[in-house]
């Protein structure tokens, strides 16, 4: 079942299944799943036991499951799998599912994409905790903010998702901060996100390269300033910028060699903003990209040999890239 269905199932008070396997690479959802189970009542929060799979064997886990909780009610056994524990004990888990302990709920947290040998049934529920797609993330942000009693502009939610990066946990942290930041105000606007959430350097470097490609000097300088003001080290910025232009050069060469566009992003493993990446490739001739890469190398040399003046070096580089 999808993660969102877990909350629905618990809310519908259909009673908890004896086993929940929370599987997927999104650790935040796995943790949230445990929180939902704890909040489902039946004394689970009070009787929660966390077992690390790396320190345990299946008989130990089974013994924990069949031992009634000391304080009565039902017990929540959280099995944190850090490797292949659940995968390796799939048969034992299915056997346990056939005769589960009446006094325990097992929450197995499995940080992998697939689960082999385990089938969903009435006693065993599989909850998918996969990473969200961009549109899903925006919807998730909106619903989380609504749950906190606030509203959010769609543009603000989109900006937040762009700036917060991949980690859902960090995104959730930003949502909490934003809700707290606006205080009594009912709505979160783009300006709030701009003020509170510093963009990911990867994203900002894209913005910088885009502005430079469009010859928007002022915009490019402002992005560079934002990056420098956020405390990002100029050496790191240069490295990112150099990486960006090297990828653009490789992409340009591949396109000139007749490769199809989707092949190019796939070959170069461009998972972030592929459309924008290709538009940057289109905006430059190969010679121009080589020349700009040379400018970045020259700025790198200047940074290492002039003993400071980072701001001037970065800004003059930005202006040369936008020339």
């Amino acid at each position, binding site marked *: 079942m999808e993660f969102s269905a877990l909350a629905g199932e618990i809310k519908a008070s259909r009673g908890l299944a004896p086993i929940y396997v929370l599987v997927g690479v999104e*650790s*935040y959802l796995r943790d949230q799943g445990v929180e939902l189970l704890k909040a489902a009542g039946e004394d689970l929060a009070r009787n929660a036991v*966390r077992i690390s799979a790396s320190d345990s064997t299946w008989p130990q886990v089974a013994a924990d499951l069949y031992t009634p909780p000391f304080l009565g009610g039902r017990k929540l056994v959280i099995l944190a799998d850090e490797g292949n524990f659940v995968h390796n004990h799939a048969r034992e888990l299915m056997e346990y599912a056939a005769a589960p302990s009446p006094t325990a709920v097992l929450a197995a947290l499995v940080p992998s994409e697939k689960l082999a040998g385990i089938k969903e049934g009435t006693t065993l529920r599989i909850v998918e905790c996969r990473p969200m797609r961009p549109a899903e993330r925006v919807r998730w942000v909106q619903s989380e903010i609504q749950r906190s009693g606030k509203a959010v502009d769609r543009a603000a939610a989109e900006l937040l998702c762009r700036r917060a990066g991949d*980690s859902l*946990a*960090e995104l959730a*942290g*930003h949502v*909490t*901060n934003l809700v*707290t*930041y606006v*205080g009594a105000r009912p709505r979160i606007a783009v300006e709030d996100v701009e*003020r*509170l*959430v*510093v963009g990911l350097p990867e994203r900002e470097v894209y913005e910088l390269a885009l502005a430079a490609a469009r010859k928007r*000097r*002022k915009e490019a*300088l*402002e992005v560079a*300033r934002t990056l*420098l*003001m*956020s*405390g990002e*080290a100029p050496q*790191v910025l240069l490295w990112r910028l150099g990486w960006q232009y*090297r990828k653009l*050069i490789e992409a340009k060469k591949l396109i000139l060699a007749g490769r199809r566009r989707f092949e190019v992003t796939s070959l170069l493993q461009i998972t972030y903003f592929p459309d924008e990446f290709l538009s940057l490739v289109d905006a430059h001739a*190969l*010679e121009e990209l*080589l*020349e700009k*890469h*040379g400018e970045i*190398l020259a700025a790198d040399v*200047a940074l290492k*040999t*002039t*003993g*400071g*003046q980072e*701001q*001037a*070096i970065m*800004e*003059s580089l930005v*202006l*040369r890239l936008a*020339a």
Partner: protein
Amino acid sequence: MRDAMEREKTYTVLARRYRPVSFDEVVGQEHVAQTLRNAIADGRVGHAYLFSGPRGVGKTSTARLLAKALNCAEGISADPCNKCEICLAVQDGTDTDVIEMDAASNRGVDDARALREGVRYAPLRSRHKIYIIDEAHMLTREAFNTLLKTLEEPPPHVKFIFATTEPHKIPDTIASRCQRFDFRRITAADILKRLKQIVTREKLHVDDAVLDACARAARGSMRDGESVLDQLLAFKEKGLTAGDVSALLGAAAEDRIEAIVAALKAADPGAALTALDAVFAGGLDPAAFTDQMIEHVRTLMVIQACGRTSPVVDLPDHLLESCVKQSAGFSLEAFLYFIQILFEARRRIREGANPRIVLEVSLVKMAKAGDLVSVAEALKGAQNAPVTPAPPIKPPSPEPPPPAPEENAAPPSSIEEFARAWPRLVAEVKKSSMVAGALLAQCRPIKMGAAEIEIQVPQNLGKIQVDNLKQPKHTGAIETVLHRIFGRRTGIRVTLESGGASAAEPRRPSPSSDLAADPSVRKVLDAFPGSRVDHIE
């Protein structure tokens, strides 16, 4: 004498004395202060925070404020009393329940274990036990792992605040369990405002221009700004001038810099050198002066590119007006050119060249920038005579990429000819291997044999660069291009320039004679009888 000693004993630097004592006093980080205030008021304080940002922008101070707010004897409040024993102890960094740990010197797994053990015990006298871990990125991976379990489910009485200047070094597993706040560099205007408050409280009279100079010298760090002011006040308490700040920082007074810019605008090298002479007469450090020039030209460049109202400019009004005037009349390209020359000057000074000569040559180059016209433009002018004079300030535009060597062109017959074709060779190599091209650009050909070219790596680049260039992937790329030029397989031999070889080594062909021999330049010279190539950029 005794008074002075007593004063010295009790003196606390401004940066410590004027640490913010309430969220309202936090400068430049209003977004963080506001969020924390609201979190305290709503009872939504998280169990772990990650404060990231450059040094001296208020991370530790904000952490202490949060600690005070949570542990104040008067009750949890965004406005702690600042009078109770706990507030005062937290402010001094001596509270028993607010544990400040410097992760730079306590970075090991044992330190983290000791911390984890301590977490289990209730606070001695306050509501919360608060761990402020400064320079958190310095913790080892094992130490982070030790903390991880505690961070996952900390006891309700414990709060963690990690402060770091390098958030990317914090493992995701830790960062994802913290509420993150990004602290920004503080603008010069905000630093100025705070410095004004400090001098008012200290009952001192310091000119705005002095404070402004301190604020700009701080480069976004409040602590640095306060330190500069501290040093100035130690120097003299009354009658401080902007010149004192310049003297303290080893910088030239603004009017000297202005004079140099005016000379550059007038394309008057003599005036520029006279102004420079005055700077040297003041006994200033040439490196610091070059830095100041770079910064000044950068300001003018940014005004030119973004306009005076852009936040990128970040100048107080009185300086803004003057800088806007100075930047008028220059093109953006001129500033880029100036900055490039100044970077080069800075590099040479750092390498030990005579700073005076380096700076003088740089200023003359900058003043004479208007005389330089790119070959492309000169050719265009020659074709469309009558020629219009070049505008007063016009640095050479970047030359178009050199044309690819013609497959059927006659191969170079001498090392001089080959040296002339060198930039084209480098450009060609860059097309197939950026790294090989970049390495090659720093070398020069010195000998041409029938089957081999000898390339020399400058001594300052060292043997490592020779080894780099000798890698088969690089030599392969270079030899492919040589094959196209010579029409036959030509190998390369890479050598390192010997220390005292400059006198004995074969003379590099004169650049002006190289250029004069170029057919396109020849055409320009023919079009202007009597002209000659005497300066190359």
